[in-house]
């Protein structure tokens, strides 16, 4: 039977906050040769925030997985330190204060979710509502007057000075929808159709939802020029379909559809083709000099190369050379200052979060929880893979935030809610089942 491990969790949480504080002091020492003056408030702020999160968790989800909160605290904190460091490096768009405020808001949302959502299975009843909300959020930037175009991507909506990236919240709503929908329809979807070679092909009419999701993600790609979100959504849906139906054919069909769609898109849109050219030949000088060419990617790679195995040390690299170092390319800035060592450690932390999520999914007791936890965990892993793989030129670069690290309130809030859902589900999964009444003297068990 799983233990609560509350003390261990508190110690790990304190350790995560301590690592972040040391990193923060490190930046100050490297740049100003003194401990940053805001060290105490900053430390107390983050520590207090996490203590509050811990107390709410201990009260409202006592059986929750003890690793999730400390791990997320660590990546969120390292992200904060990097943004502080990048801001100090002269990047006007980076603001550690804003990010700290958004972290606070994220933790508040985390606790609110835990308190308000006592039983996550309530979400199952909101399957279609979630689907509708998700789709609306996804297309909302296209609504005239509401949507805003920033840096060539129309993925924002604005209310006065505040901007929100609704796709970040749409992801969550859509995963809830996928989980609910697939639980309801999985038997139908899993029904064998024709068998061709070694693959069981589904029936044509069951392809409907797959084609709709494919259409929506292509729509996102085309209308909003948001390659990353498109790839993220479609991939997550296909994997959830596979988990639910246990049929490899869905994965193959999904890959074929995506490759086909991407190929058509690359023929139709220059920016897609250019991303692929850049991926294949990042060092080509002509591409390097081209506007929107490979310079951004190469600057990231130069940074990672400069970091080498041990890194330059916090505050001693040159993140100002990396475009978007505070958002999409924050991982390159980490690679420079913390080196391969830091990169491996942070990837390991992400892998652990995903692994804890999938463990929750495995031990969950009902199909909806299994699918939702599996889907959310994969969403996180897939997002890290797409953006980190893109920045390190493992795959073509598509813009996405690095979860918990990149600057940006929408993503941070959405990801804290994602973690709250995983915590809620792990609490349910690890909670000992109610004791069965074992009074054989009163109850007769009949067997036929």
């Amino acid at each position, binding site marked *: 039977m799983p233990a609560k491990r509350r003390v261990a969790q508190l110690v790990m949480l304190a350790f995560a906050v301590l690592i972040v504080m040391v990193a923060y002091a490190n930046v100050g020492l490297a740049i100003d040769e003194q401990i940053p003056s805001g060290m105490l408030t900053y430390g107390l702020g983050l520590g207090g925030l996490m203590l509050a999160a811990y107390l709410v968790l201990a009260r409202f989800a006592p059986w929750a997985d003890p690793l999730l909160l400390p791990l997320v605290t660590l990546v969120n904190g390292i992200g904060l330190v990097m943004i502080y460091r990048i801001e100090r490096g002269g990047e006007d768009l980076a603001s550690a204060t804003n990010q700290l405020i958004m972290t606070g808001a994220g933790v508040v949302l985390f606790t609110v979710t835990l308190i308000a959502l006592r039983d996550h299975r309530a979400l199952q009843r909101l399957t279609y509502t979630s689907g509708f909300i998700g789709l609306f959020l996804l297309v909302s930037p296209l609504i005239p007057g509401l949507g805003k175009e920033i840096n060539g991507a129309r993925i924002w909506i604005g209310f006065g000075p505040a901007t929100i990236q609704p796709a970040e919240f749409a992801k969550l709503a859509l995963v809830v929808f996928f989980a609910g929908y697939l639980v309801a329809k999985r038997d139908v979807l899993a029904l064998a159709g024709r068998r061709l070679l070694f693959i069981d092909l589904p029936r044509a009419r069951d392809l409907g939802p797959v084609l709709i999701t494919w259409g929506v993600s292509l729509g996102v790609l085309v209308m909003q020029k948001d390659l990353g979100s498109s790839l993220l959504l479609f991939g997550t849906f296909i994997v959830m379909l596979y988990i639910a139906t246990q049929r490899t054919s869905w994965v193959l069909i999904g890959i074929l559809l995506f490759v086909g769609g991407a190929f058509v898109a690359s023929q139709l849109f220059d920016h897609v083709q250019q991303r692929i050219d850049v991926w294949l030949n990042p060092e080509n000088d002509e591409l390097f000099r081209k506007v929107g060419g490979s310079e951004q990617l190469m600057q990231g790679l130069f940074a990672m190369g400069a970091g080498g195995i041990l890194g330059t040390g916090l505050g001693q690299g040159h993140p100002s050379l990396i475009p978007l170092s505070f958002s999409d390319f924050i991982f390159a800035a980490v690679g420079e200052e913390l080196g391969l060592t830091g990169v491996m450690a942070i990837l390991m932390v992400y892998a652990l979060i995903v692994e804890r999520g*999938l463990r929750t999914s495995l031990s969950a007791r009902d199909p909806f929880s299994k699918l939702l936890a599996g889907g959310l965990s994969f969403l996180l892993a897939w997002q890290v893979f797409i953006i980190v793989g893109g920045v*390190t030129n493992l795959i073509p670069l598509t813009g996405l935030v690095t979860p918990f690290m990149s600057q940006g309130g929408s993503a941070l809030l959405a990801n804290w809610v994602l973690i709250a859902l995983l915590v809620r589900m792990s609490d349910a999964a690890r909670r000992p089942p109610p004791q069965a009444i074992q009074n054989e003297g009163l109850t007769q068990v009949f067997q036929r």
Partner: protein
Amino acid sequence: MNGTLKRTAVACLAMFALLMINANYLQAVRASDLEEDTRNQRNYFERYEVQRGRITAGGDVILAQSVETDKGDFRFLREYPEGPLYAHVTGFFSPESESGIEKATNELLDGSSPDLLLRRSIDLFTGEPTRGANVDLTLNPRAQKAAYDALRQEGKRGAVVALDPRTGAILAMVSLPTYDPAELSKPQKQPVFQRYDELAKDKSQPLLNRTIDRTYAPGSTFKVVATAAWLEEDSSRDAQTPVEAPVRLSLPQTSHQLPNYGGAACGDGRPPMVYALEKSCNTPFGKIALDLGYDKMLEQSQKFGIRQRIGIPMSVAPSDIGPQEDPAAIAMTAIGQRSTQMTPLQMAMIAAGVVNDGKVMKPYLVNKVTDAKGDEIDAADPQELSEAMSADNARKLRDMMVSVVNNGTAKNAQIPGVAVGGKTGTAETAKGQPPHAWFIGFAPAENPKIAVAVLVESGAASVGAEATGGGVAAPIAKVVMEAVLNQ
């Protein structure tokens, strides 16, 4: 669903494994390629991370220093408080390269030299940042300033180099036109490269250090070498030994004849050697060289330092008298024409060798190297480069050169109360071009303090005749010598 969930978990692990393998490939395997990429601006940021050492002259005049800034990517910026005055000595420190002393002692200045290993280890231990070593130069700030001002007043291209004859320490090194090293030492690539391009394309070649990077025909100043060879051949010869001095010297295997300047006679045709030198007659030296032959002239020149690779620590362009040509050519060599090509530094070394009892000292610029704490790492150790003449013969030649200043073509170099020695020169260059004006000399003859060479390119345009070197170059040398003697 647990089966597919487990497979999904494996897929997630595989994705993270791919990211990790790729990160290892990037940061361990490809790191050095990425670092060396010319488009990687970090290559020249790092140059500004270390507090580069100071370059000073005479211990306290700061020629170059790194000053800490509090903003942006460039931590330390290079300053040159003396501006163009020492440009060719210090050189510049540009985003991608350096020159002069900045280049020649780069490893000391940026602290990477093996000589600083101990210091670096201590700094690592005590947690102090690595700092470059300070380089103190032998230059005499007064002499440098005097040379610069005097040459600039002439308004022509030229070079002045002064040595301490007894040690080889370089006291002044001026080349005109010059440039401001600060303009080429900004950390921003664009303006620096643009300025460098302008300077490199400038026909007057301001980037060229004329004292060591370029050779010139030395003209009559080279008669000193011919005289040295002549003295060395027979120790019974001295200043009063008569020499053959026809109005025109017939050259073997050619119809050409070597005249004296303006076809003038040289005394009575058999004047004493000292007279030939005072009046800078051509024919006696042509005759001497013909009698000595190419090999002996070459040997004597080599004893003064030609054809040697010298680092001061910047490398000096080798001087040469050229290959052995027709027999007539050596007569022209004796008067510093034909293939005879000397750097101004080499000519200063010749004057210094004569006044230092025939011993030519190895010229050097670095007086002392100290680490950031002030502890001495290295100090100059004067070395003899070669013995050009016997002390006896050297004194004879020295006195003849004093006579040239007292009674001959170099009267403009006279300093009241000081025995100054010297020799003027006028070197013909291309046809139609005004000749170069030269002066080499030393002071005082006993216990010498300074040997100097002055070259003014095309300096003979305004003043006529053989007196050119004496008219244009000697007064500059006089000012420089006074600057050193009056300290």
